[in-house]
């Protein structure tokens, strides 16, 4: 995920800003990390460079 995307993204539930915590990057983008809502505190994972911004109750656990 491009860091610039943060300007457009928001929490799917309450539409507040997200805070990025990157745990893995390459030259261009964030590969693994978490986006956390600055209002409700809900955390959204970034995996394989793709943020999962489904509402938590629609999130299916990735198969082990």
């Amino acid at each position, binding site marked *: *995920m*491009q860091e*610039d*995307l943060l*300007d*457009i*993204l*928001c*929490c*799917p*539930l309450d*539409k507040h800003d*997200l805070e990025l915590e990157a745990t893995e990057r390459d030259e*261009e*983008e964030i590969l693994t990390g978490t986006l956390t809502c600055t209002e409700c505190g809900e955390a*959204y994972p970034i995996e*394989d*460079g*793709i*943020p*999962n*911004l*489904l*509402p938590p109750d*629609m999130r*299916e656990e*990735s198969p082990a």
Partner: protein
Amino acid sequence: MSVQEEFDSWAESGKDRGMEQRHWHTAKHALARMPVEPGDRILDLGTGSGYALRALRETHDTGLSIGLDGSPEMVHNARAYTDDPLIGFLQGDFHHLPIASNSIDHVWSMEAFYYAQEPIAVLEELRRVLRSGGTFYCAVNYFEESTQTHEWQDRISIEMLRWDRSQYREAFEDAGLIVAEQDTIPDEEVDIPPAEEFPTEEWDSREAMVDRYRRWGTLLTVGVAP
């Protein structure tokens, strides 16, 4: 089967690229009508393989754009098909867009809107994320007037919205979008065999196939955020 699982299995079996190829016949004509300026931010709702965003980047030099899809396998594939830094893919749901208000110039959606379980809520979300004067180009092949498509519902466990042209117009207006255009775009490219080759594996009669592709094709409804 959930929407995610259903479309994950499509993506895994390569249906994402198959759709890209087939949908392109009419999608390209609808995309060509969009009043996109260089730098515009596009949202592709139910992006599948992400071809629409790739095409708009090439033709209009669009800005940072988002391909949203509920299926992790779809966005995973879509991401693999491009390394353009101005195209981002994410998992998200039509009804709960993780996108800031007034941040998008134009929304594109092909063969995806009718999976919305609460279509007015989705349209209201789109209106929220669109800047004033932004457009929503909504293209569907499955709709009331195109009777040959009705049986698609039997092949999928997700409930599909079967609106007619006027229901699309009314729903857009109910959600506060101005309807600027409605049109059916025929698919002139799909090959329709001569009459003697019917029935084929998929089609009982040549008339049915002509009705589906050449007569109806894709229903395009264009909404504008006021």
